[in-house]
């Protein structure tokens, strides 16, 4: 009862249960949790040191000792994949998290603040998103040099405008909603309106979009690392593993295969989870899916 | 008078979490050519489900557990989907509460009316024929109206165009679901007059579904009062309004602010809530709110016929 009175609970009850009831969402949730566990527990579950060399054992196919085989330097691929999950998810979640937070704050300010500020912010969002992403990323990396920090910086810069614009559009639509007018008529200040009444109602679509964007970033990281523009080589990034595997595609095809599988599964996991969340969180989406 | 459309012992339910929602229970009604029937009730009484069944547009999930809707003898609910579609519109047309939702916003009125009319007979889609119909529903300068878009018309004008669209299909039955609820009082009066004028020129039956007692009184020949999925009272509008037999009808007529003397200060209200449609009692569904309830009300309710054309579903209404 007291929770009912005090509860400014931004999320409606039973989202977890509804998500589990949605088969695709459940599959996504299982995959995402599995990858998260893999990333968190990497030091304990990886059978070998991911960068320890064993030149005698190079290009071994999967065996009882090395479940996923070894690469051109004899490193255990399973361990590299497990540590790679930590790197991939770490970069993706950090950068998208920062971009999401920036987008949320700027979007709320643009949508609820004074018109002139909105004009300036929209100009910034538009000019940012009009830059061709890959060339912009290449240019920044050329200037700052490749590395994890550069990668995160680039991803934040290219992804926050989309989030900010989503939040701004939602906020603008809600600013004229009856309940926001009613709050203003009761004397609520801007801080209360934004934090208690706008935020919980605009954040759902952002969570969904972020979920769907994480695999894009994982792919981008893999792609840039593959081009030697991302994470520097000894680190076990999935992109690095792929890139090295391609050099020996004829000799040892298993390298590319075992590095590709987690990439595909992680992408599917986050996409399914995002789709599942959309069906659960967005009441307007109810019935949009067929069957 | 022979009925042009008749609903026979119709029961419809929806499956909902936690049970079976019984939207209609053993409803029987009929309307003759040239007659205007009013279906009156509060939200949740089943009047919208009844209207949807009469035009065969029941939502998915609706289960017809018994009964039929006969249009000139054919049971509409058991036709093939192809035959249903052919029948709908030509024989039964509907006018909705918010006419804006019935129109496509990016096509002109003329284009949309032509689609309605031309679906069955291309000759009726000629601009002159369309303009004549718009003139008949009281639209000034009908020729220009054909070139307009739905958003350029006021609510009252859109409702007139919606009525014109329905009439272009030359239906046998015209169903109007809350046709004046979204309109101002002066527009409401004009639409009531239009519908009343149409009765004489339109060779079919009109069914008005509304919660507004004034609209029923102004427009209808007969009225059916619904409560919790049943027709609890039916009869000619004059005798029913002046001699209501069912306690619910009486309460409903008594608490309309338009009839209560302002000097009395307080308005009579009906205490309690409508019953849970997933757990209806075996006896009278109104009994918990009824001031005249007796122990007998817990047993199944008989239907009495207190006068010509009248029927009442109440234990207390017997001879």
């Amino acid at each position, binding site marked *: *009862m*007291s929770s*009912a*009175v*005090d*509860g*400014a*609970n931004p999320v*409606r009850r039973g989202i977890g249960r509804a998500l589990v009831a949605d088969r695709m969402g459940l599959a996504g949730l299982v995959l995402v949790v599995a990858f998260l566990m893999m990333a968190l527990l990497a030091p304990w579950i990886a059978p070998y040191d991911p960068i320890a060399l064993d030149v005698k054992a190079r290009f071994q196919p999967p065996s009882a000792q090395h479940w996923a085989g070894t690469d051109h330097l004899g490193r255990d691929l399973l361990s590299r994949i497990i540590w790679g999950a930590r790197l991939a998810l770490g970069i993706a979640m950090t950068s998208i998290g920062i971009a999401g937070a920036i987008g949320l704050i700027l979007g709320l300010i643009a949508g609820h603040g004074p018109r002139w500020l909105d004009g300036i912010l929209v100009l910034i969002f538009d000019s940012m998103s009009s830059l061709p992403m890959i060339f912009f990323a290449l240019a920044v990396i050329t200037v700052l040099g490749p590395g994890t920090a550069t990668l995160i910086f680039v991803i934040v810069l290219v992804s926050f405008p989309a989030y900010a614009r989503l939040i701004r559009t939602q906020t603008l639509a809600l600013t004229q909603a*009856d*309940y926001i*007018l*009613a*709050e*203003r*008529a*009761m*004397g*609520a*200040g801007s801080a*209360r309106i934004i934090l*208690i*009444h706008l935020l919980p*109602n605009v954040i759902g679509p952002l969570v969904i979009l972020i979920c769907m964007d994480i695999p894009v970033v994982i792919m981008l990281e893999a792609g840039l690392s593959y081009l030697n523009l991302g994470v520097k080589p000894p680190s076990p990034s999935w992109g690095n593993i792929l890139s090295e595997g391609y050099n020996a595609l004829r000799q040892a095809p298993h390298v590319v295969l075992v590095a590709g599988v987690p990439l595909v599964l992680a992408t599917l996991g986050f996409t399914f989870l995002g789709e599942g969340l959309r069906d659960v969180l967005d009441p307007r989406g109810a019935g949009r899916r067929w069957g | 008078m022979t009925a042009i459309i008749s609903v026979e012992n119709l029961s419809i339910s929806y499956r909902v979490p936690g049970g079976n929602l019984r939207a209609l229970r053993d409803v029987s009604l009929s309307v003759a050519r040239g007659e205007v029937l009013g279906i009156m009730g509060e939200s949740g009484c089943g009047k919208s489900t009844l209207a949807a069944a009469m035009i065969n547009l029941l939502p998915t999930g609706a289960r017809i557990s018994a009964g039929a809707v006969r249009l000139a003898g054919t049971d509409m609910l058991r036709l093939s989907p192809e035959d249903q579609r052919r029948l709908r519109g030509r024989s039964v047309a509907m006018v909705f509460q918010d006419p804006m939702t019935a129109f496509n916003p990016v096509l002109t009125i003329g284009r949309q009316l032509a689609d309605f009319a031309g679906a069955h007979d291309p000759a009726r889609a000629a601009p002159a024929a369309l303009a004549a119909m718009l003139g008949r529903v009281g639209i000034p300068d009908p020729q220009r109206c054909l070139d307009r878009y739905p958003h350029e018309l*006021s*609510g009252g*004008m859109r409702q007139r165009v919606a009525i014109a669209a329905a009439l272009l299909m030359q239906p046998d039955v015209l169903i109007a679901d809350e046709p004046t609820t979204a309109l*101002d*009082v*002066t527009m*409401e*009066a*004009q639409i*009531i007059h239009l519908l009343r004028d149409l009765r004489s020129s339109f060779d079919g039956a009109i069914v008005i579904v509304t919660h*507004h*007692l*004034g609209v*029923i*009184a*102004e427009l209808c020949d007969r009225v059916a009062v619904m409560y919790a999925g049943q027709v609890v009272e039916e009869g000619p*509008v*004059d005798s029913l*309004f*002046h001699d209501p037999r069912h306690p619910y009808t009486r*309460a*409903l*007529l008594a*608490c*309309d*602010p*338009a*009839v*209560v003397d*302002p000097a009395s*200060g*307080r*308005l*009579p*209200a*009906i205490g309690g809530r409508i019953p849970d449609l997933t757990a209806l009692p075996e006896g009278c569904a109104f009994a918990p709110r009824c001031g005249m309830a007796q122990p007998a009300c817990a047993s199944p309710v008989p239907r009495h016929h207190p006068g010509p054309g009248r029927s009442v579903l109440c234990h207390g209404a017997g001879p």
Partner: protein
Amino acid sequence: MKTVLDLRDVSVDLPLGGFLSRARLPILLDVSLGIAAGESVALVGESGSGKTTLARAVMGLQPISRGTMSLDDQPLSTAADFTRMRRQAAMMFQDATASLSPRLTVGYLITEPFRIHGQPLADPETTARDLLAMVGLPPAIAGRYPHELSGGQARRIGVARALALKPRLLIADEPTAGLDVSVQAEVLNLLSDLRRDMGLAYLIITHNLALVRHVADRVVVLYLGRVVEQGPTAQVFAKPAHPYTASLIAAEPKPDPRQRRADLAIRGEVPSVLRRPSGCEFHARCPLARDLCRRVAPALASTGPGRMARCHFAVTTQQEQGEEHAVEN
């Protein structure tokens, strides 16, 4: 009696919105209105008459372009004025469900006025229960979300929230819109009980004349943003001075099949505010219109004690009104 709300010559206009255009569209024109403590005033008009705009202007949600407003002799013009007045005045919106923030519980929403105005709220639970009891709802409803409420319940929550801080003035925009007849009666009775118990002043905005007859002491009729008639409710309904008021009353459907009207009380539609008619703005729809009406705009003039009308030919009504008064007294 003491005046609570006082509006003098309030005008509102909106930018027409062309690129670099300075043109403005008048929505309200020189509306003057006073509401005394404990008095209930109804603002009546069709859609487009500007009645909702006036309510929003009073609450500071819509800037006014001319005129003065005051609440309890305190001027209402700056943002600080409105912040202060929002403790003494409350507004109920037309769509009761949509005016409740969707992700919050009823218990939170109903106690929010205390949080907004930094009022002591020692025991939110008891406060919520008391407020729910005041509007006749069970305490268990505190745990519900707005989408789980029926129309009547949402309306009651709106009343409870509006009255939480015991305001002096309540503005109610279509307080019975979308409610069933039986629930309508309950909400109207609740409003009149609270007025009696708390000495509230009401500004009720509606196009439902049956409602006006029951809850309003005085009625103000708006047409295209101008006051065309005002006066005590019973007198205005008995003898409307303006032909527009007369046609509104006649247009109302009577719930009695023996009183069917033979012909239309009023033809045509409310003209667009973009194309205001010349002279008297009602002339195109008026059964009494003469040449004078097409050329000269009438002024709002007294037609009897406490009564005003904006019509060249309202004078005749005044004489009848006077005679009737003589008889009554």
